[in-house]
C-alpha cells in the first residue's frame, strides 16, 4: 500500500539516470534524418520496435481521445458539479470564506516564492522545444481522433437504417476542427520563432526566469476565463436543477475570485522580492515559514467555520488563563535557564512532566475536572522546561526560549478557544468541508502530525534501550504488515468502543488518528534509513565536545539524517496524499466519493461515473507529479548524491 519508492531510488543512481537521460538532449544540432536513424532505426530490431511502439502509441492515443470526445460522454456532469467536487455542499452565502482562505494561501505562496526567489531560469531552448512538442502533439491528436458522430438538428445522434452511427468523413472532420489546428499552428510557430531568435550561437544558453514563465502561464489561463467561451454551468442545490449555457464565458462568481487570486499571488511575490533585500529579510522568512505551519489549522478551523465567540466567556476565562500560562510559564522558564540552576532545574522539569502526564491519566479516569487547554499547556510547559538547559547562559538565548513559549501559548490558546466554540456556518454533511478541501485537509494534518511521531519511533527503533527498541519495532512491523483500509475501518468503527463513558470523537477525528498512526510507522522506516547512514564518528565527535544525548540527537544526528532521507520523505508525502482516496470507502465525502457516488446519484446524471473519476485522476496526477518533480529539484539543490 505504501509505496515510498517514488523518490527512493538511490540518489546516486538517480544522478546516473539523469545523466544518461539528458545525453540525447545535449546534441540537438543533429539533423532530423540522422537523429531518426540514431534513435529509431539504428538496426532492424530497433526498427521493428519503433513500428511496434508506434502502433501502441497510436492506439493508446486514439483510445484516450475517443473516450474523451465520445458522444456518450456527459461532461456536463462534471462542469455543473465542479463546486461540489471542490467543497461539497459549503453554503453559497458563506462561500466568500473559501475564497478568503484560498486568497490567504495564494498571498502566502507568492510571498514565500518572492522571499526565496532563487528559482533560477529555464533555457529558452527548452521552452521552445516544449512549445513545439505541445503543438506537434496537438496536431497529431487532431488527426488521430476518430471523426465525430453527426448530430441531427435536434441535437441527437443520427443512425443509419441498420442502426450504426453515422460519422462525418475524414476531410470534413479535419475542416471542422479548424480551431484546434489554429491552436496547434500558433504553438508551433511560437516555438519556432523562439528557437530562431534565441537559440542561435550568440544567445546560446540564454534563459528565461522560471517565475515569469509560470506567471505568464497563469495570467493567460486567467485571461482565458474572461475571453474564452467555456460555458456557464452551475448546479443549483435549492431547486436541485442545473444551468448549462454553452457559448458563454464562465460565471462572474468564478472568474472574479480567480483574478483576485492571481493579483494577490503577483503582488505578494513583488512584495517578497522587495523584502528579500531589506534588512528584515531573515525575520520575514522565519515568519512566513511559521505561517505555513499554522495556516492549515487556522484556515480550516477558524475561517471556514466562523466560531460564534461568547465574549463574556472569553474575557472571564480564556484570556486570563492564556495570560496566566504565558506569564507564569515564562517566569518559570526564565528562572530555569539561569546559569547556576544545575540539578534543581532538571528536577523541576521532571516533576512538571510527571504532573502533566498525571493530568492526562486523571482525564482518562475522570478523577477531577480540568480544561483540556490547561492539560495541553502543562504538557507543553514540561517539554519547554526539559529543553531549558539548551538555552542556558546569555540573555539573548534565554529570551529566545521565553518568547517562543509566549508564541506557542498564544497560538495554542487561540486555536483551542476557536475550536471549542460552535460554528455558525451550517453544512449539510458532518464535516465543515467536503470534496477536494477535505482531501487536502486530511493529507496536510496527517503529514504534519505523523512527522514528529515517526521521528520518535525511528529514534526508538535505533535506540540503545532494548525495551524501547522492542516496542517501536513491533509497532512499526505490525502496522506495516496490514493494509491501510483495515486500519481505517478499525478506527472508524471501533474507536467509540475504546473510549471511556462520556468521551466522544467525531468520525473525522477518529480516522485522522488512525491514519496518522499508520503513516507514522512508514515515516519511521524512512527516517531510520537516514539515521543508519550517520557514521559513528559523528556520535563520537558530539560526545567529545560534551553534548548531552538530547543535544547530540537534535543538533547533530537528526539534521543530517533528515537531509539524507528527503527523497523518501517526499515519497511518503505523495503516498499519504494518494491514499487519502481511501476516505471514500469508509464513508467520508472526499472528492473521489463525490465523483463516484454523489454525482451518479443526481437525477440528471444517473450513473455518470467515468467523467468525474477521470477528473479526480487528473487532479491527483497534477499534484503528485508536481511534488515529485519539485523534490528532484530539491535533491539537486541540497546536493544529495553528489558527495
Amino acid at each position: 500500500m505504501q509505496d515510498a519508492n517514488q523518490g527512493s531510488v538511490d540518489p546516486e543512481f538517480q544522478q546516473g539516470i539523469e545523466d544518461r537521460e539528458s545525453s540525447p538532449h545535449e546534441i540537438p544540432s543533429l539533423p532530423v534524418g540522422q537523429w531518426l536513424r540514431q534513435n529509431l532505426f539504428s538496426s532492424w530490431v530497433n526498427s521493428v520496435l519503433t513500428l511496434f511502439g508506434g502502433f501502441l502509441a497510436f492506439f493508446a492515443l486514439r483510445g484516450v481521445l475517443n473516450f474523451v470526445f465520445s458522444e456518450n460522454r456527459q461532461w456536463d456532469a462534471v462542469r455543473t458539479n465542479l463546486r461540489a467536487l471542490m467543497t461539497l455542499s459549503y453554503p453559497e452565502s458563506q462561500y466568500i470564506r473559501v475564497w478568503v482562505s484560498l486568497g490567504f494561501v495564494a498571498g502566502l505562496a507568492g510571498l514565500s516564492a518572492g522571499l526565496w526567489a532563487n528559482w533560477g531560469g529555464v533555457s529558452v531552448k527548452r521552452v521552445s522545444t516544449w512549445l513545439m512538442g505541445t503543438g506537434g502533439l496537438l496536431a497529431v491528436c487532431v488527426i488521430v481522433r476518430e471523426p465525430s458522430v453527426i448530430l441531427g438538428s435536434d441535437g441527437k445522434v443520427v443512425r443509419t437504417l441498420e442502426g450504426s452511427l453515422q460519422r462525418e468523413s475524414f476531410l470534413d472532420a479535419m475542416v471542422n476542427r479548424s480551431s484546434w489546428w489554429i491552436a496547434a499552428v500558433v504553438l508551433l510557430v511560437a516555438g519556432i520563432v523562439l528557437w530562431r531568435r534565441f537559440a542561435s550561437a550568440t544567445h546560446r544558453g540564454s534563459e528565461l526566469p522560471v517565475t515569469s514563465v509560470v506567471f505568464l502561464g497563469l495570467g493567460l489561463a486567467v485571461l482565458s476565463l474572461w475571453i474564452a467561451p467555456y460555458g456557464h454551468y452551475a448546479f443549483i442545490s435549492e431547486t436541485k436543477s442545473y444551468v448549462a449555457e454553452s457559448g458563454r464565458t464562465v460565471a462572474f462568481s468564478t472568474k472574479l475570485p480567480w483574478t483576485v487570486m492571481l493579483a494577490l499571488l503577483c503582488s505578494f511575490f513583488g512584495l517578497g522580492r522587495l523584502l528579500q533585500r531589506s534588512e528584515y529579510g531573515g525575520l520575514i522568512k522565519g515568519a512566513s515559514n511559521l505561517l505555513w505551519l499554522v495556516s492549515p489549522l487556522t484556515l480550516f478551523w477558524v475561517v471556514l467555520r466562523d466560531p460564534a465567540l461568547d465574549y463574556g466567556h472569553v474575557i472571564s476565562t480564556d484570556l486570563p488563563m492564556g495570560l496566566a500560562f504565558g506569564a507564569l510559564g515564562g517566569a518559570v522558564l526564565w528562572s530555569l535557564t539561569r546559569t547556576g540552576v544545575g540539578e534543581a532545574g532538571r528536577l523541576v522539569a521532571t516533576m512538571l512532566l510527571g504532573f502533566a502526564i498525571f493530568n492526562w491519566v486523571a482525564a482518562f479516569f475522570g478523577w477531577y475536572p480540568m480544561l483540556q487547554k490547561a492539560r495541553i499547556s502543562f504538557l507543553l510547559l514540561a517539554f519547554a522546561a526539559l529543553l531549558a538547559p539548551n538555552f542556558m547562559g546569555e540573555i539573548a538565548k534565554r529570551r529566545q526560549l521565553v518568547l517562543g513559549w509566549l508564541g506557542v501559548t498564544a497560538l495554542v490558546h487561540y486555536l483551542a478557544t476557536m475550536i471549542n466554540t460552535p460554528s455558525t456556518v451550517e453544512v449539510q454533511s458532518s464535516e465543515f468541508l467536503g470534496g477536494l478541501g477535505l482531501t487536502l485537509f486530511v493529507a496536510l494534518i496527517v503529514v504534519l502530525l505523523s512527522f514528529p511521531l515517526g521521528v520518535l519511533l525511528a529514534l526508538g527503533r535505533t535506540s540503545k534501550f532494548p525495551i524501547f527498541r522492542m516496542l517501536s519495532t513491533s509497532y512499526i512491523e505490525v502496522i506495516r504488515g496490514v493494509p491501510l483500509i483495515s486500519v481505517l475501518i478499525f478506527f472508524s468503527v471501533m474507536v467509540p468502543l475504546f473510549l471511556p463513558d462520556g468521551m466522544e470523537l467525531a468520525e473525522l477525528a477518529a480516522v485522522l488518528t488512525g491514519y496518522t498512526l499508520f503513516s507514522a510507522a512508514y515515516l519511521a522506516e524512512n527516517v531510520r534509513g537516514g539515521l543508519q547512514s550517520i557514521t559513528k564518528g559523528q556520535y563520537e565527535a558530539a560526545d567529545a565536545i560534551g553534548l548531552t544525548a538530547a543535544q547530540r540527537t537534535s543538533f547533530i544526528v537528526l539534521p543530517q539524517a533528515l537531509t539524507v532521507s528527503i527523497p523518501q520523505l517526499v515519497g511518503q508525502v505523495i503516498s499519504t496524499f494518494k491514499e487519502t482516496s481511501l476516505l471514500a470507502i469508509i464513508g467520508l465525502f472526499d472528492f473521489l466519493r463525490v465523483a463516484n457516488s454523489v454525482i451518479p446519484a443526481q437525477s440528471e446524471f444517473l450513473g455518470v461515473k467515468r467523467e468525474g473519476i477521470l477528473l479526480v485522476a487528473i487532479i491527483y496526477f497534477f499534484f503528485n507529479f508536481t511534488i515529485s518533480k519539485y523534490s528532484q529539484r530539491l535533491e539537486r539543490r541540497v546536493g544529495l548524491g553528489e558527495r
Partner: protein
Amino acid sequence: MASSAPPSIHHERPPFYRDVTVVKWAVQVLALMLTIGALWFLAKQAGDNLRASNVPTDYNFLSVNPGIDLSSGIDTDPDTGGRALWVGMVNTLRMAIAGIFVATIVGVLVGLARLSNNWLLRKLGTVFVETLRNVPLLVQILFYGAIFASLDRVSMDVGPINGWFHLSNKGLSMPRVHIADGFYQWMIVIGIGLFAANFLRKRRIAEQDLSGEETYPILSAFGLIVVIGILGWFVHPIFGFVGNIFSSLSSAVSAIPEGAVQVLIAFLSVGLSVYWIRGFLKSRRTPAGLAKLTDDDYFRMIFAATGGVLGAVFFLVLWPGLSSWIINSGSDLFEVLSNKFGNGRSGRPIDVALPEVVQIGKFPNYGPSGLNFSIGFAAVFFGVVFYTSAFIAEIVRGGILAVPKGQTEAAAALGLRRSIALRRVIIPQAARVMLPPLGNQYLNLTKNTSLAIAVGYSDIVQVGQTVYNQTGKTLPVVSIWMFFYLSCSLSISVVVNFFNVRMRIVER
C-alpha cells in the same frame, strides 16, 4: 578526602538517581508499564462497552451460517462464517498471486523499455510509469470498474468469440484448465521427475566443468521432466496406494491423547527458550572465558526465559482447546489427502472445460464451466497490475543502472556475447539490488488487493465487513484480518530473504 588520588574519582559510584544503568532501566520499565497499562485500560473499556451493548466478543460466528452470498470465489454460498472468510482469503491470495506474476512481467518489460536505445519506447515507458504511479490505485480501480460496467449486456450470442471467449458487463469468461481426477497421483510422478532432473543437471554440470564441452544441463533436465511427465500421464494410477497410507496416518493421528500434545507444546516452548539462551551464552564466550555480560544481555536472557515459561503456562493452562484442535485438523488433513489419492482415480490429471452462457430464469448469465472473471476481479486485477508494474519498472531500471559500466566492458573484453553478458554478468548483479525493493512491492500488492472492497470483489476485507455487519463481531473479524495479512507479509519476507541470502556476495 585525599587529593592524591584523582583516578579513584572514576570508580566512585554516582548516587543511584544519576546512575546510567539504573535510570536507563527505570525509564524503560516505566514506559513498558505505561504501554501495558494503556492497552489494558483500552481492552477493559472495549470489553465493558461490548458487554453493555450485548455483543460478546467470541468466535462462535465462525461455525454459524452467516446467510450471505459472495460475488465470486470457490464457494459463493458458504454455510459457515469461517467458510465465508476462508473463501475471502482464497480470493485475496488468488488475486495477489496472479497480480504478482503479471505485474512482474509488465514491470520488467516497461523497465527495459525505459532503458532502450529506441527513443519512442523510452518515451512510452516514461509516460506509462509517470501516469500510473501518480494516480491513486483506488481511483484507477474505480475507473476500470466503471469502464467494465459499461460494456454490453450479456446475451446468448455474446462475443468476441462465442463459445470460447465472452466479454460483457458480467465480466470475462474463457476456457478453464482444471485439476481432474488423477492429478495428485500424477504430481507424485512429477516429483520423482524433478528429483531425477536435478540429479541429471548436477551431473551434466560436473561433466561440463571436467571436459569444457557444452552439455546443456538446464535444457536436458527440462527435457527429462517433460518425458517423465508424459510417461506419468499413462502410468499414474499405480500410485493409488498412497491413499491408504494417508488414511492409516489419519487414524494414527486421531489416536494421540490430547494431554501428550499439550505437554509437547509446553515442552517445546521452554526448550526453545533454553536453547536460545545456551546459544546466546555461547556467542558471548571468548577464548579467555565468558565475556562480561552487560545489562542488555541479562535483559535478553531474562526476557527469553520469561517468554518460554509464559508460553508453557499459556498452552498448558489457559488454552487447552489448542491440542484437540491440532489433533482434529491434522487427522482431517490426512483424511482429505487420502480421498484425493484414493484408488480408482484413474482419469486424466488435467482437463479443459469450455465456457458457456446459460439462461436460468429471465436473464442469460455465464455458466460455471468456464473460467469466469467478474468485473470486480478485472478492475482490481488491472488496477494492482498496472499500478505495481509502474513501481517495478522503476526498480528494474534502477537495478540495471546500478551495475557499473565497467562490468559490461569487462564482459565484452572477455569476448562474451551480449546475451550471455546480460544473463551471466549484468542481471545477477542487478538482481541483488532489485530484490529487496521488489519484495516490498509484492507485499504492497498483496495489501492493495484489500481495495477490492470498493468494487465489491469478495476478498477477505469485503467478506469480513459483510460478516461483521451481519453478526456485529467487529473485533474478532478485525483480528482475523490482522492475522491473515501479517502471515502473508511474513511469508513474502521469508521467501524474499531466502533469495536475498542466496544472492549475497560471498565475502572472505
